[in-house]
Protein backbone atom coordinates (compact mmCIF):
# COMPACT_ATOMS: atom_id res chain seq x y z
CA UNK A 1 0.00 0.00 0.00
CA UNK A 2 1.17 3.52 -0.81
CA UNK A 3 3.16 5.30 1.87
CA UNK A 4 3.23 9.04 2.26
CA UNK A 5 5.69 11.18 4.21
CA UNK A 6 4.46 13.21 7.16
CA UNK A 7 6.51 15.80 8.97
CA UNK A 8 5.43 17.95 11.89
CA UNK A 9 6.48 19.27 15.26
CA UNK A 10 5.30 17.06 18.09
CA UNK A 11 5.52 18.61 21.55
CA UNK A 12 8.41 20.76 20.38
CA UNK A 13 10.42 18.09 18.50
CA UNK A 14 10.69 17.76 14.74
CA UNK A 15 9.27 14.40 13.64
CA UNK A 16 9.05 12.73 10.24
CA UNK A 17 7.68 9.33 9.25
CA UNK A 18 6.19 7.43 6.35
CA UNK A 19 2.62 6.35 6.97
CA UNK A 20 -0.01 4.49 4.97
CA UNK A 21 -1.90 6.91 2.81
CA UNK A 22 -5.19 7.55 4.56
CA UNK A 23 -3.92 6.70 8.00
CA UNK A 24 -5.05 8.86 10.86
CA UNK A 25 -3.03 11.25 12.97
CA UNK A 26 -3.93 9.02 15.94
CA UNK A 27 -2.32 5.99 14.27
CA UNK A 28 0.72 8.03 13.22
CA UNK A 29 1.25 9.37 16.75
CA UNK A 30 0.71 6.06 18.49
CA UNK A 31 2.20 3.50 16.12
CA UNK A 32 4.90 5.52 14.36
CA UNK A 33 5.98 8.28 16.73
CA UNK A 34 5.62 6.38 20.01
CA UNK A 35 3.33 8.93 21.65
CA UNK A 36 0.59 6.74 23.08
CA UNK A 37 -0.95 9.46 25.23
CA UNK A 38 -3.86 9.98 22.80
CA UNK A 39 -6.17 6.97 23.11
CA UNK A 40 -8.47 5.29 20.64
CA UNK A 41 -11.82 4.80 22.34
CA UNK A 42 -14.09 4.73 19.30
CA UNK A 43 -12.13 5.69 16.17
CA UNK A 44 -15.25 7.43 14.95
CA UNK A 45 -15.19 10.84 16.57
CA UNK A 46 -17.58 10.22 19.42
CA UNK A 47 -15.54 9.81 22.62
CA UNK A 48 -12.79 12.44 22.67
CA UNK A 49 -10.09 10.09 24.03
CA UNK A 50 -7.88 10.90 21.03
CA UNK A 51 -8.06 14.70 21.48
CA UNK A 52 -4.86 16.60 20.60
CA UNK A 53 -4.03 20.17 19.58
CA UNK A 54 -3.06 20.97 16.01
CA UNK A 55 -1.77 24.52 15.57
CA UNK A 56 -3.48 25.53 18.79
CA UNK A 57 -6.87 24.07 17.82
CA UNK A 58 -8.49 21.03 19.39
CA UNK A 59 -8.70 18.10 17.00
CA UNK A 60 -9.95 14.53 17.21
CA UNK A 61 -6.86 12.73 15.96
CA UNK A 62 -8.92 9.67 14.96
CA UNK A 63 -10.71 11.79 12.36
CA UNK A 64 -7.66 13.75 11.19
CA UNK A 65 -5.60 12.38 8.31
CA UNK A 66 -1.92 12.34 9.21
CA UNK A 67 -0.95 13.66 5.78
CA UNK A 68 -2.98 16.85 6.39
CA UNK A 69 -0.76 17.74 9.37
CA UNK A 70 2.44 18.49 7.49
CA UNK A 71 4.33 21.40 9.04
CA UNK A 72 1.81 21.64 11.90
CA UNK A 73 2.52 22.16 15.57
CA UNK A 74 1.03 19.21 17.41
CA UNK A 75 0.61 19.02 21.15
CA UNK A 76 -0.49 16.10 23.28
CA UNK A 77 -0.80 15.42 27.00
CA UNK A 78 2.58 13.67 26.90
CA UNK A 79 4.19 17.06 26.25
CA UNK A 80 2.39 19.12 28.87
CA UNK A 81 4.68 18.65 31.85
CA UNK A 82 7.95 20.51 32.01
CA UNK A 83 10.23 17.64 32.98
CA UNK A 84 9.08 16.57 36.43
CA UNK A 85 7.07 19.77 36.90
CA UNK A 86 3.45 19.05 36.12
CA UNK A 87 1.14 21.40 34.21
CA UNK A 88 -1.42 22.98 36.58
CA UNK A 89 -4.15 20.87 34.97
CA UNK A 90 -2.22 17.69 35.63
CA UNK A 91 -1.71 18.69 39.25
CA UNK A 92 -5.37 19.59 39.60
CA UNK A 93 -6.53 16.27 38.10
CA UNK A 94 -4.36 14.51 40.69
CA UNK A 95 -5.58 16.62 43.59
CA UNK A 96 -9.25 16.54 42.66
CA UNK A 97 -9.38 12.78 42.04
CA UNK A 98 -10.42 13.43 38.46
CA UNK A 99 -9.38 10.05 37.04
CA UNK A 100 -10.04 6.41 37.74
CA UNK A 101 -9.02 4.15 34.86
CA UNK A 102 -7.30 7.11 33.22
CA UNK A 103 -8.24 6.23 29.65
CA UNK A 104 -10.17 9.45 29.06
CA UNK A 105 -7.69 11.59 30.98
CA UNK A 106 -5.20 12.63 28.26
CA UNK A 107 -8.05 13.70 25.96
CA UNK A 108 -9.88 15.43 28.80
CA UNK A 109 -6.74 17.33 29.80
CA UNK A 110 -6.15 18.52 26.22
CA UNK A 111 -9.74 19.74 25.97
CA UNK A 112 -9.30 21.57 29.28
CA UNK A 113 -5.91 22.98 28.26
CA UNK A 114 -7.44 24.46 25.10
CA UNK A 115 -10.14 26.07 27.24
CA UNK A 116 -7.70 27.64 29.70
CA UNK A 117 -5.55 28.95 26.86
CA UNK A 118 -8.43 30.87 25.34
CA UNK A 119 -10.22 31.66 28.61
CA UNK A 120 -8.05 31.67 31.74
CA UNK A 121 -11.03 32.37 34.03
CA UNK A 122 -13.77 30.00 32.92
CA UNK A 123 -16.93 29.51 34.90
CA UNK A 124 -18.53 26.16 35.46
CA UNK A 125 -20.67 26.41 32.33
CA UNK A 126 -17.57 27.11 30.23
CA UNK A 127 -15.88 24.00 31.61
CA UNK A 128 -18.94 21.84 31.00
CA UNK A 129 -19.09 23.09 27.43
CA UNK A 130 -15.36 22.56 26.89
CA UNK A 131 -15.37 18.91 27.95
CA UNK A 132 -18.75 18.10 26.39
CA UNK A 133 -17.07 16.13 23.59
CA UNK A 134 -15.12 13.92 26.00
CA UNK A 135 -16.70 10.81 27.45
CA UNK A 136 -15.68 9.46 30.85
CA UNK A 137 -17.25 6.20 32.00
CA UNK A 138 -15.62 5.84 35.42
CA UNK A 139 -15.05 9.02 37.33
CA UNK A 140 -18.21 11.01 36.76
CA UNK A 141 -17.87 14.51 35.36
CA UNK A 142 -18.12 16.45 38.61
CA UNK A 143 -14.55 15.77 39.85
CA UNK A 144 -13.28 16.57 36.36
CA UNK A 145 -15.13 19.89 36.27
CA UNK A 146 -13.80 20.70 39.74
CA UNK A 147 -10.24 19.85 38.62
CA UNK A 148 -10.42 22.23 35.67
CA UNK A 149 -11.78 25.03 37.87
CA UNK A 150 -9.06 24.29 40.42
CA UNK A 151 -6.38 24.55 37.73
CA UNK A 152 -7.82 27.85 36.53
CA UNK A 153 -7.73 29.22 40.08
CA UNK A 154 -4.17 27.96 40.59
CA UNK A 155 -3.14 29.68 37.35
CA UNK A 156 -4.66 33.01 38.29
CA UNK A 157 -3.09 32.91 41.79
CA UNK A 158 0.35 32.15 40.39
CA UNK A 159 -0.08 34.88 37.77
CA UNK A 160 -1.08 37.46 40.41
Amino acid at each position, binding site marked *: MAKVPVQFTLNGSERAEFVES*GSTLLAAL*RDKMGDTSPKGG*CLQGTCGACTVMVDGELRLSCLTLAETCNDAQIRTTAGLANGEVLHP*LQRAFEDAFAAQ*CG*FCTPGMIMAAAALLERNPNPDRADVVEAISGNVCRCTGYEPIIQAVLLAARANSTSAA
Partner: protein
Amino acid sequence: MKLSKSYFADERTDDFVEIGQPRPRSDIRGHVTGRTAYFADRTFPGLLHLKMVRSPHHHARIRGIDTSEAEKHPGVARIITAKDVPQNLYTILILIQVGPEDEHVLAEDKVRWKGEAVVAVLAETARAAEEAAAKVKVDYEVLPAVLSIEEALKPDAPIVNEHHGRNYYLYDSGECRKVRFGDAEKGFAQADHILEESYSSGPIEHAPLETSGCIVTPEANGRFTCYTNTQAMFFTLDNASIILQMPGHKLHMVGGTVGGGFGGKVDVTVEPVAILAAKLTGRPVSFIYSREEEMQVSSPRAAEKIVIKDGVMKDGRIVARQVMAYIDAGAYSRHSPYGAQKSAAHFPGPYTIPNVAIDSYCVYTNRTPSSAMRGFGVTIGDFALEVQTDKLARLIGMDPLEFRFINAYRDGDMKAHRQPTEGAALIECMQEASVIAGWPVDERFMKMSSQTREG
Protein backbone atom coordinates in the same frame (compact mmCIF):
# COMPACT_ATOMS: atom_id res chain seq x y z
CA MET B 1 -15.32 13.92 54.97
CA LYS B 2 -17.06 13.30 58.24
CA LEU B 3 -16.60 9.83 59.66
CA SER B 4 -18.85 8.65 62.44
CA LYS B 5 -16.78 6.69 64.94
CA SER B 6 -19.28 6.22 67.74
CA TYR B 7 -20.27 2.75 66.51
CA PHE B 8 -16.70 1.54 66.92
CA ALA B 9 -16.31 3.18 70.32
CA ASP B 10 -15.97 -0.16 72.14
CA GLU B 11 -13.51 -1.57 69.67
CA ARG B 12 -11.24 1.36 68.90
CA THR B 13 -9.94 3.91 71.35
CA ASP B 14 -7.14 5.19 69.12
CA ASP B 15 -7.82 7.59 66.28
CA PHE B 16 -8.00 6.45 62.69
CA VAL B 17 -4.86 7.18 60.73
CA GLU B 18 -5.74 6.17 57.19
CA ILE B 19 -9.52 5.85 57.22
CA GLY B 20 -11.22 9.10 56.38
CA GLN B 21 -8.03 10.61 54.95
CA PRO B 22 -7.80 11.41 51.25
CA ARG B 23 -4.93 9.59 49.57
CA PRO B 24 -3.89 10.02 45.96
CA ARG B 25 -4.38 7.02 43.69
CA SER B 26 -1.14 5.15 43.21
CA ASP B 27 -1.52 5.25 39.42
CA ILE B 28 -2.66 8.86 39.05
CA ARG B 29 0.69 10.30 37.89
CA GLY B 30 0.71 8.00 34.86
CA HIS B 31 -2.87 8.91 34.04
CA VAL B 32 -2.32 12.68 34.00
CA THR B 33 0.93 12.48 32.06
CA GLY B 34 -0.36 9.98 29.51
CA ARG B 35 2.29 7.47 30.56
CA THR B 36 0.04 4.76 32.04
CA ALA B 37 0.50 1.71 29.79
CA TYR B 38 -2.66 0.08 28.45
CA PHE B 39 -2.42 -3.15 26.48
CA ALA B 40 -2.75 -1.42 23.10
CA ASP B 41 0.03 1.09 23.83
CA ARG B 42 2.56 -1.11 22.09
CA THR B 43 3.25 -2.09 18.56
CA PHE B 44 5.41 -4.80 17.03
CA PRO B 45 7.05 -5.16 13.64
CA GLY B 46 5.00 -7.41 11.38
CA LEU B 47 1.86 -6.99 13.49
CA LEU B 48 -1.21 -8.64 11.94
CA HIS B 49 -4.73 -7.36 12.51
CA LEU B 50 -7.58 -9.71 13.25
CA LYS B 51 -11.12 -8.96 12.11
CA MET B 52 -13.97 -11.24 13.08
CA VAL B 53 -16.73 -12.23 10.69
CA ARG B 54 -19.89 -12.34 12.79
CA SER B 55 -23.34 -13.78 12.45
CA PRO B 56 -25.93 -11.38 11.05
CA HIS B 57 -28.71 -13.69 12.33
CA HIS B 58 -30.07 -14.44 15.79
CA HIS B 59 -30.33 -18.13 15.06
CA ALA B 60 -29.23 -19.99 11.94
CA ARG B 61 -27.70 -23.20 10.70
CA ILE B 62 -24.42 -22.79 8.84
CA ARG B 63 -24.65 -24.69 5.55
CA GLY B 64 -21.25 -23.66 4.27
CA ILE B 65 -18.42 -21.16 4.55
CA ASP B 66 -16.56 -19.89 1.48
CA THR B 67 -13.37 -17.98 2.20
CA SER B 68 -11.83 -18.19 -1.29
CA GLU B 69 -12.52 -14.57 -2.28
CA ALA B 70 -11.34 -13.27 1.07
CA GLU B 71 -8.10 -15.24 0.82
CA LYS B 72 -7.26 -13.51 -2.44
CA HIS B 73 -7.73 -10.04 -0.97
CA PRO B 74 -4.41 -8.12 -0.91
CA GLY B 75 -2.74 -8.17 2.49
CA VAL B 76 -4.56 -11.22 3.87
CA ALA B 77 -2.22 -13.49 5.82
CA ARG B 78 -4.51 -16.23 7.10
CA ILE B 79 -8.12 -17.14 7.66
CA ILE B 80 -9.17 -19.16 10.69
CA THR B 81 -12.34 -21.22 11.02
CA ALA B 82 -13.72 -23.61 13.64
CA LYS B 83 -11.70 -26.57 12.37
CA ASP B 84 -8.46 -24.74 13.26
CA VAL B 85 -9.37 -24.48 16.94
CA PRO B 86 -7.95 -27.45 18.90
CA GLN B 87 -10.76 -27.58 21.51
CA ASN B 88 -13.49 -25.43 20.03
CA LEU B 89 -16.22 -26.21 22.57
CA TYR B 90 -15.81 -24.53 25.94
CA THR B 91 -17.49 -22.76 28.82
CA ILE B 92 -15.67 -20.36 31.10
CA LEU B 93 -16.83 -21.71 34.46
CA ILE B 94 -15.84 -25.31 33.67
CA LEU B 95 -12.80 -24.32 35.76
CA ILE B 96 -15.03 -24.51 38.81
CA GLN B 97 -17.07 -27.44 37.49
CA VAL B 98 -19.98 -25.35 36.25
CA GLY B 99 -20.62 -27.12 32.93
CA PRO B 100 -21.58 -28.28 30.42
CA GLU B 101 -19.41 -26.77 27.70
CA ASP B 102 -21.95 -24.98 25.53
CA GLU B 103 -20.16 -22.41 23.34
CA HIS B 104 -17.85 -22.55 20.31
CA VAL B 105 -14.87 -20.25 20.02
CA LEU B 106 -15.74 -20.04 16.29
CA ALA B 107 -19.19 -21.22 15.18
CA GLU B 108 -19.34 -24.73 13.69
CA ASP B 109 -22.79 -25.90 12.74
CA LYS B 110 -24.96 -23.10 14.08
CA VAL B 111 -25.00 -19.52 15.24
CA ARG B 112 -27.19 -18.74 18.22
CA TRP B 113 -27.00 -14.97 18.51
CA LYS B 114 -26.54 -11.99 16.23
CA GLY B 115 -22.84 -11.17 16.52
CA GLU B 116 -21.51 -14.67 17.18
CA ALA B 117 -17.92 -15.17 15.97
CA VAL B 118 -17.69 -17.30 12.82
CA VAL B 119 -14.47 -16.67 10.88
CA ALA B 120 -11.30 -14.78 11.86
CA VAL B 121 -9.45 -12.90 9.12
CA LEU B 122 -5.82 -11.82 9.58
CA ALA B 123 -4.25 -9.17 7.41
CA GLU B 124 -1.35 -6.74 7.26
CA THR B 125 -3.53 -3.74 8.08
CA ALA B 126 -6.78 -3.27 9.95
CA ARG B 127 -8.33 -1.96 6.76
CA ALA B 128 -7.31 -4.98 4.68
CA ALA B 129 -8.67 -7.30 7.39
CA GLU B 130 -11.98 -5.47 7.36
CA GLU B 131 -12.26 -5.49 3.58
CA ALA B 132 -11.40 -9.18 3.38
CA ALA B 133 -13.83 -10.05 6.18
CA ALA B 134 -16.59 -8.51 4.07
CA LYS B 135 -15.72 -11.03 1.32
CA VAL B 136 -16.19 -14.13 3.48
CA LYS B 137 -19.39 -15.86 2.38
CA VAL B 138 -21.37 -17.79 4.92
CA ASP B 139 -24.44 -19.72 3.76
CA TYR B 140 -27.03 -19.56 6.53
CA GLU B 141 -30.37 -21.30 6.93
CA VAL B 142 -32.22 -18.93 9.20
CA LEU B 143 -34.01 -20.61 12.13
CA PRO B 144 -36.77 -19.25 14.36
CA ALA B 145 -35.27 -17.22 17.19
CA VAL B 146 -36.24 -16.83 20.82
CA LEU B 147 -35.80 -13.22 21.89
CA SER B 148 -37.32 -12.97 25.35
CA ILE B 149 -37.54 -14.88 28.61
CA GLU B 150 -41.29 -15.38 28.07
CA GLU B 151 -40.81 -16.88 24.60
CA ALA B 152 -37.96 -19.08 25.81
CA LEU B 153 -40.09 -20.70 28.50
CA LYS B 154 -43.09 -21.50 26.28
CA PRO B 155 -43.51 -25.27 26.03
CA ASP B 156 -43.09 -25.36 22.23
CA ALA B 157 -40.24 -22.81 22.08
CA PRO B 158 -37.34 -23.62 19.74
CA ILE B 159 -34.32 -24.93 21.65
CA VAL B 160 -31.68 -22.22 21.81
CA ASN B 161 -28.73 -24.33 22.84
CA GLU B 162 -28.66 -28.10 22.29
CA HIS B 163 -25.92 -28.54 24.87
CA HIS B 164 -28.53 -27.78 27.51
CA GLY B 165 -31.45 -29.45 25.73
CA ARG B 166 -33.89 -26.99 27.32
CA ASN B 167 -34.07 -23.22 27.51
CA TYR B 168 -32.85 -22.96 31.08
CA TYR B 169 -29.83 -24.09 33.03
CA LEU B 170 -30.11 -27.34 34.94
CA TYR B 171 -28.47 -26.96 38.35
CA ASP B 172 -27.35 -29.93 40.40
CA SER B 173 -30.32 -29.07 42.61
CA GLY B 174 -32.84 -28.93 39.76
CA GLU B 175 -34.30 -26.55 37.20
CA CYS B 176 -33.55 -23.41 39.21
CA ARG B 177 -31.69 -22.27 42.30
CA LYS B 178 -34.10 -22.56 45.19
CA VAL B 179 -34.06 -21.05 48.65
CA ARG B 180 -36.62 -22.37 51.16
CA PHE B 181 -36.88 -20.97 54.69
CA GLY B 182 -39.80 -21.35 57.08
CA ASP B 183 -43.10 -21.88 55.28
CA ALA B 184 -44.06 -19.18 52.79
CA GLU B 185 -47.63 -20.46 52.31
CA LYS B 186 -48.27 -20.34 56.05
CA GLY B 187 -46.80 -16.85 56.14
CA PHE B 188 -49.13 -15.62 53.40
CA ALA B 189 -52.09 -17.17 55.24
CA GLN B 190 -51.38 -15.13 58.37
CA ALA B 191 -50.51 -11.86 56.55
CA ASP B 192 -52.80 -8.83 56.75
CA HIS B 193 -51.99 -7.85 53.16
CA ILE B 194 -50.44 -9.50 50.14
CA LEU B 195 -48.65 -7.59 47.40
CA GLU B 196 -47.49 -9.22 44.18
CA GLU B 197 -45.61 -7.14 41.63
CA SER B 198 -43.37 -7.89 38.69
CA TYR B 199 -40.26 -6.04 37.64
CA SER B 200 -38.19 -6.34 34.50
CA SER B 201 -35.05 -4.88 33.04
CA GLY B 202 -33.30 -4.83 29.67
CA PRO B 203 -29.66 -5.72 29.01
CA ILE B 204 -27.16 -3.00 29.96
CA GLU B 205 -23.85 -2.44 28.19
CA HIS B 206 -20.83 -1.43 30.27
CA ALA B 207 -19.46 0.77 27.45
CA PRO B 208 -15.91 1.06 28.81
CA LEU B 209 -13.93 3.77 27.06
CA GLU B 210 -11.21 1.26 26.13
CA THR B 211 -12.65 -1.58 24.05
CA SER B 212 -11.84 -5.25 24.75
CA GLY B 213 -8.76 -6.62 23.09
CA CYS B 214 -5.31 -8.16 23.22
CA ILE B 215 -2.00 -8.23 21.39
CA VAL B 216 -0.13 -11.53 21.18
CA THR B 217 3.49 -12.09 20.25
CA PRO B 218 5.08 -15.48 19.54
CA GLU B 219 8.36 -15.67 21.47
CA ALA B 220 11.63 -17.31 20.45
CA ASN B 221 11.32 -19.75 23.35
CA GLY B 222 8.08 -21.18 21.99
CA ARG B 223 5.87 -19.28 24.40
CA PHE B 224 3.22 -16.72 23.55
CA THR B 225 3.03 -13.40 25.31
CA CYS B 226 -0.53 -12.09 25.47
CA TYR B 227 -0.98 -8.44 26.45
CA THR B 228 -4.61 -8.20 27.43
CA ASN B 229 -7.08 -5.96 29.20
CA THR B 230 -8.94 -8.88 30.72
CA GLN B 231 -10.34 -8.40 34.20
CA ALA B 232 -10.03 -12.14 34.81
CA MET B 233 -6.44 -13.13 34.19
CA PHE B 234 -6.63 -16.68 35.46
CA PHE B 235 -9.96 -17.49 33.81
CA THR B 236 -8.32 -16.30 30.61
CA LEU B 237 -5.11 -18.25 31.11
CA ASP B 238 -6.83 -21.50 32.03
CA ASN B 239 -9.54 -21.31 29.38
CA ALA B 240 -6.98 -20.39 26.70
CA SER B 241 -4.92 -23.36 27.82
CA ILE B 242 -7.93 -25.69 27.43
CA ILE B 243 -9.11 -24.22 24.11
CA LEU B 244 -5.63 -24.26 22.58
CA GLN B 245 -4.68 -27.58 24.21
CA MET B 246 -1.50 -25.86 25.27
CA PRO B 247 0.08 -26.18 28.71
CA GLY B 248 -0.26 -23.03 30.79
CA HIS B 249 3.50 -22.43 30.94
CA LYS B 250 3.47 -21.73 27.19
CA LEU B 251 1.14 -18.81 27.81
CA HIS B 252 2.52 -15.65 29.34
CA MET B 253 -0.46 -13.44 30.09
CA VAL B 254 0.41 -9.81 30.76
CA GLY B 255 -2.28 -7.60 32.26
CA GLY B 256 -2.03 -4.02 33.35
CA THR B 257 -4.23 -1.00 33.62
CA VAL B 258 -7.69 -1.70 32.24
CA GLY B 259 -9.36 1.26 30.55
CA GLY B 260 -12.67 0.65 32.28
CA GLY B 261 -14.17 -2.77 32.70
CA PHE B 262 -17.12 -2.81 35.10
CA GLY B 263 -17.30 -6.59 34.65
CA GLY B 264 -17.45 -6.40 30.86
CA LYS B 265 -13.97 -7.82 30.48
CA VAL B 266 -14.27 -11.08 32.37
CA ASP B 267 -15.37 -13.27 29.46
CA VAL B 268 -12.70 -15.04 27.44
CA THR B 269 -13.58 -13.79 23.97
CA VAL B 270 -10.45 -12.37 22.34
CA GLU B 271 -7.37 -14.07 23.75
CA PRO B 272 -7.70 -17.72 22.62
CA VAL B 273 -8.32 -16.92 18.97
CA ALA B 274 -5.59 -14.25 18.93
CA ILE B 275 -3.06 -16.66 20.46
CA LEU B 276 -4.10 -19.30 17.92
CA ALA B 277 -3.63 -16.75 15.13
CA ALA B 278 -0.13 -15.93 16.39
CA LYS B 279 0.67 -19.63 16.50
CA LEU B 280 -0.64 -20.35 13.00
CA THR B 281 1.10 -17.35 11.40
CA GLY B 282 4.19 -17.08 13.60
CA ARG B 283 3.54 -13.35 13.78
CA PRO B 284 2.32 -10.85 16.37
CA VAL B 285 -1.43 -10.41 16.25
CA SER B 286 -3.70 -7.65 17.45
CA PHE B 287 -7.39 -8.31 18.07
CA ILE B 288 -9.17 -5.21 19.33
CA TYR B 289 -12.94 -4.75 19.33
CA SER B 290 -14.24 -1.83 17.34
CA ARG B 291 -16.55 0.50 19.23
CA GLU B 292 -19.46 -1.15 17.45
CA GLU B 293 -18.34 -4.60 18.61
CA GLU B 294 -17.91 -3.35 22.17
CA MET B 295 -21.48 -2.05 22.15
CA GLN B 296 -23.12 -4.89 20.22
CA VAL B 297 -21.05 -7.99 20.81
CA SER B 298 -19.43 -7.76 24.24
CA SER B 299 -21.62 -9.32 26.89
CA PRO B 300 -24.03 -6.96 28.68
CA ARG B 301 -25.69 -7.23 32.07
CA ALA B 302 -28.49 -9.76 31.81
CA ALA B 303 -32.09 -8.77 31.21
CA GLU B 304 -34.15 -9.92 34.19
CA LYS B 305 -37.74 -10.58 35.08
CA ILE B 306 -38.56 -10.73 38.77
CA VAL B 307 -41.94 -11.47 40.36
CA ILE B 308 -42.10 -10.71 44.08
CA LYS B 309 -45.01 -11.68 46.31
CA ASP B 310 -44.90 -10.40 49.88
CA GLY B 311 -47.12 -10.92 52.90
CA VAL B 312 -47.05 -7.97 55.31
CA MET B 313 -48.62 -7.25 58.70
CA LYS B 314 -50.33 -3.97 59.64
CA ASP B 315 -47.53 -3.34 62.15
CA GLY B 316 -44.96 -3.34 59.32
CA ARG B 317 -43.42 -6.80 59.53
CA ILE B 318 -42.87 -8.67 56.27
CA VAL B 319 -43.88 -12.22 57.21
CA ALA B 320 -43.56 -14.04 53.91
CA ARG B 321 -41.83 -13.59 50.57
CA GLN B 322 -41.98 -15.59 47.38
CA VAL B 323 -39.79 -14.69 44.39
CA MET B 324 -39.72 -16.09 40.87
CA ALA B 325 -36.70 -14.71 39.05
CA TYR B 326 -35.56 -15.24 35.48
CA ILE B 327 -32.10 -14.16 34.36
CA ASP B 328 -31.60 -13.94 30.57
CA ALA B 329 -28.22 -15.57 29.89
CA GLY B 330 -28.52 -15.03 26.15
CA ALA B 331 -27.35 -17.94 24.00
CA TYR B 332 -24.56 -19.24 26.24
CA SER B 333 -23.88 -19.68 29.93
CA ARG B 334 -20.72 -17.61 30.43
CA HIS B 335 -21.15 -16.40 34.04
CA SER B 336 -24.96 -16.39 34.16
CA PRO B 337 -25.63 -19.66 36.05
CA TYR B 338 -23.57 -18.12 38.81
CA GLY B 339 -25.40 -14.77 38.51
CA ALA B 340 -28.78 -16.48 38.86
CA GLN B 341 -27.49 -18.42 41.86
CA LYS B 342 -26.31 -15.24 43.54
CA SER B 343 -29.69 -13.64 42.94
CA ALA B 344 -31.45 -16.50 44.72
CA ALA B 345 -29.41 -15.94 47.86
CA HIS B 346 -29.95 -12.20 47.65
CA PHE B 347 -33.70 -11.85 47.25
CA PRO B 348 -34.64 -11.56 50.91
CA GLY B 349 -32.61 -8.34 50.78
CA PRO B 350 -31.16 -6.88 53.97
CA TYR B 351 -34.36 -7.80 55.79
CA THR B 352 -35.25 -10.54 58.20
CA ILE B 353 -38.22 -12.44 56.78
CA PRO B 354 -39.28 -15.64 58.56
CA ASN B 355 -40.87 -17.41 55.58
CA VAL B 356 -39.15 -17.33 52.20
CA ALA B 357 -39.43 -19.28 48.92
CA ILE B 358 -37.23 -18.27 46.01
CA ASP B 359 -36.79 -19.80 42.55
CA SER B 360 -34.12 -18.28 40.28
CA TYR B 361 -33.86 -19.50 36.69
CA CYS B 362 -30.99 -18.98 34.28
CA VAL B 363 -32.78 -18.79 30.91
CA TYR B 364 -31.35 -19.16 27.38
CA THR B 365 -32.48 -16.92 24.51
CA ASN B 366 -31.00 -16.06 21.10
CA ARG B 367 -29.66 -12.81 22.48
CA THR B 368 -26.12 -11.59 23.11
CA PRO B 369 -24.67 -13.72 25.91
CA SER B 370 -24.86 -11.72 29.11
CA SER B 371 -22.30 -11.94 31.83
CA ALA B 372 -20.72 -10.06 34.69
CA MET B 373 -21.43 -6.42 35.43
CA ARG B 374 -21.05 -4.68 38.78
CA GLY B 375 -23.04 -6.80 41.21
CA PHE B 376 -24.61 -8.98 38.51
CA GLY B 377 -27.47 -11.10 39.78
CA VAL B 378 -27.93 -8.63 42.62
CA THR B 379 -28.22 -5.06 41.34
CA ILE B 380 -31.44 -5.44 39.35
CA GLY B 381 -32.82 -7.52 42.21
CA ASP B 382 -32.05 -4.68 44.59
CA PHE B 383 -33.93 -2.26 42.37
CA ALA B 384 -36.95 -4.57 42.43
CA LEU B 385 -36.68 -5.19 46.18
CA GLU B 386 -36.44 -1.58 47.20
CA VAL B 387 -39.28 -0.49 44.91
CA GLN B 388 -41.31 -3.34 46.39
CA THR B 389 -40.34 -2.21 49.90
CA ASP B 390 -41.63 1.31 49.21
CA LYS B 391 -44.86 -0.12 47.82
CA LEU B 392 -45.33 -2.31 50.91
CA ALA B 393 -44.83 0.67 53.21
CA ARG B 394 -47.35 2.69 51.18
CA LEU B 395 -49.81 -0.21 51.25
CA ILE B 396 -49.98 -0.16 55.04
CA GLY B 397 -49.63 3.62 55.30
CA MET B 398 -46.24 3.61 56.96
CA ASP B 399 -43.20 5.82 56.40
CA PRO B 400 -40.87 3.89 54.05
CA LEU B 401 -37.77 4.50 56.19
CA GLU B 402 -39.50 3.44 59.42
CA PHE B 403 -40.77 0.38 57.56
CA ARG B 404 -37.16 -0.54 56.76
CA PHE B 405 -36.12 -0.16 60.42
CA ILE B 406 -38.80 -2.67 61.41
CA ASN B 407 -37.58 -5.25 58.91
CA ALA B 408 -33.82 -4.60 58.94
CA TYR B 409 -31.69 -7.64 59.70
CA ARG B 410 -29.66 -7.57 62.91
CA ASP B 411 -26.81 -9.55 64.37
CA GLY B 412 -27.80 -13.10 65.15
CA ASP B 413 -30.75 -13.22 62.70
CA MET B 414 -30.67 -16.29 60.45
CA LYS B 415 -30.83 -15.33 56.78
CA ALA B 416 -32.96 -17.40 54.45
CA HIS B 417 -29.92 -19.02 52.85
CA ARG B 418 -28.74 -20.11 56.32
CA GLN B 419 -25.99 -17.57 56.92
CA PRO B 420 -26.30 -16.03 60.37
CA THR B 421 -26.14 -12.24 60.24
CA GLU B 422 -22.92 -10.84 61.64
CA GLY B 423 -21.54 -7.32 61.79
CA ALA B 424 -24.80 -5.75 60.60
CA ALA B 425 -24.80 -1.96 60.47
CA LEU B 426 -27.94 -1.29 58.45
CA ILE B 427 -29.82 0.31 61.34
CA GLU B 428 -26.90 2.60 62.16
CA CYS B 429 -26.53 3.56 58.48
CA MET B 430 -30.23 4.39 58.29
CA GLN B 431 -29.98 6.44 61.50
CA GLU B 432 -27.14 8.48 59.96
CA ALA B 433 -29.02 8.76 56.68
CA SER B 434 -32.15 9.94 58.44
CA VAL B 435 -30.22 12.81 60.04
CA ILE B 436 -28.22 13.75 56.93
CA ALA B 437 -31.23 13.58 54.61
CA GLY B 438 -33.46 15.48 57.03
CA TRP B 439 -35.96 12.60 56.96
CA PRO B 440 -36.83 12.20 60.64
CA VAL B 441 -38.08 8.91 62.06
CA ASP B 442 -39.71 8.11 65.37
CA GLU B 443 -37.46 8.22 68.44
CA ARG B 444 -37.75 4.46 68.98
CA PHE B 445 -36.00 3.83 65.64
CA MET B 446 -33.19 6.19 66.56
CA LYS B 447 -32.64 4.07 69.70
CA MET B 448 -32.45 0.77 67.83
CA SER B 449 -29.19 -1.12 67.46
CA SER B 450 -27.98 -3.78 65.02
CA GLN B 451 -26.49 -5.66 67.92
CA THR B 452 -29.59 -6.20 70.05
CA ARG B 453 -33.32 -6.59 69.68
CA GLU B 454 -35.44 -4.45 71.97
CA GLY B 455 -38.15 -5.98 74.15
